[in-house]
């Protein structure tokens, strides 16, 4: 259930600032993990410009603010699908950037199956766009299955079936059990 104040914050021009403050960084981070950062900066800004222009059409009955924003961002990412896949393929070849040592160390501590960022990137590149959207909305955005359905404007069952296919592909590609 969405709070009345949250609806007001979206629709009311003056209160839209609170929506921006609460969600800009996470939307930028979500896009920045899927596309190059300079493109992500522009798309994060565009997400909120679109949201502001469409704030009158925000329908609280269809879900919360976060799925709504993630849905706009995911649509924008869709225009850069080839760039996203190129990025995964580059990561598959080279792994994470060299200044990411601390991050790499954290992963190394948690992953015992010998799975590298490169292999995971290759696996993500091989998912269909719909499957990748579902997986990354959950992984990066922390959305529930219901929220993913709201964000993408698809049925709950579609989310479930895409997830099932994506899991199978990820496990097949990675060659390990990750859950």
């Amino acid at each position, binding site marked *: 259930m969405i709070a009345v104040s949250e609806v007001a914050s979206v629709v009311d021009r003056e209160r839209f600032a609170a929506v921006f403050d609460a969600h800009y960084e996470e939307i930028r981070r979500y896009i920045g993990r899927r596309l190059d950062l300079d493109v992500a900066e522009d798309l994060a800004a565009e997400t909120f410009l679109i949201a502001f222009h469409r704030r009158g059409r925000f329908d609280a009955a269809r879900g919360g603010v976060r799925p709504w924003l993630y849905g706009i961002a995911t649509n924008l990412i869709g225009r850069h699908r080839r760039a996203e896949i190129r990025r995964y393929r580059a990561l598959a070849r080279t792994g994470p950037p060299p200044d990411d040592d601390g991050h790499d160390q954290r992963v190394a501590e*948690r992953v015992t199956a010998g799975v590298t960022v490169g292999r995971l990137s290759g696996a993500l590149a091989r998912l269909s766009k719909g499957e990748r959207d579902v997986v990354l909305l959950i992984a990066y955005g922390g959305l529930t299955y219901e929220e993913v359905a709201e964000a993408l404007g698809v049925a709950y069952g579609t989310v479930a079936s895409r997830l099932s296919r994506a899991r199978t592909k990820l496990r097949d590609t990675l060659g390990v059990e990750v859950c």
Partner: protein
Amino acid sequence: MNEFQFIDDAMPDVPLADPVRVAETKARALNGARLSRRRIEGRSRGRFGWAVAAVATATVVAFVMTVPRLGTDTAPPAGGPGEVLEAVADRAAARPEPVESRYWRTTTEIFLRVRVNGYVVDDWGRQTLWYSPTLPTVREWTRLGTVPSTEEDRAAWERAGSPELCELTRGCGDDHLPPVDRTLVMPDPPNRPARPLQVFGVGLDLKEIRELPKNPVDLKARLLTYWPVYSRTQPKGPAEKVDDWLWSVGTSLLWDAPISPGTGAAVYRMLAGLPDARIIGTAQGPHGRAAIALARSSSFEGTESRILIDPSTGDPLGLRKMLVTARDGMPSGAVTTTITVQKSGWTDTSPRMPKGCTLEDAERCVY
């Protein structure tokens, strides 16, 4: 571990956003502005795309700093701050001599953060200067938005009755204030003054700009010849020191005037040699770009000013001013001004002049 947690942990993360850029984006969103399609697509074209676009464009832009150059030495220089500045100045001097055309055009985006009536306000605008060797100078001002800086400032503004937020550089009393995202064109009188280009209080003509020395010592000596006239014309108040003024003139020359690459390099070296100036080898430039900075505190303004320079090309990227001590409810280090250079170079295009726009009829000068 489930697969979603695994992906979240394993995949590279992104650095936090530049707070100035976030504030800029917020203001644009709240003012209902739109990012131009050209900007979105241009960003995603990459270097090769830019090069193709540049070739395909019929407009001749002899020297545009925002277009990355291909085939040049673009690796950031190594060494201590002094060595880095020397290397960057050498690169600046090695840039091609600009080819004079119809107009010298400089576009800068300006951000100001000021406390007014108990709350802090952020203000954005875009300024374009069109300077011609033969035609009257034209200035354009595009208003990008004015909003309370933080939620606390917004609350204070609402308690004050939500008064109109006026553009800081022009004020509420300006009848010709353009609406947000509209541009006001300001033509100079048709009779050109003898020295039409104003560089921080100094009127110069093209010949004087061309003949500015390429050696920092000679450049400083030449600029100081303008100081007596400038200081006599300033209103009485806290005395501005000559070094503060030299810093401001040098900064303004970097993007407001069609100086030669050699003079640009001399400006960097002259500014680095001023008392209290320091070189920051690794600084954050506009939009998170890597930069080196020339920094100097001004007791006159109570701020530290940082000139941001692209270490790969020597191009000036802009300016950032920060408070030296807490003031007006803003903490020490708060950014109060940024100037971001968007374009600077000769062009054969002309400024857009709305129909009926004259010096006397400014209402017709908005597009």
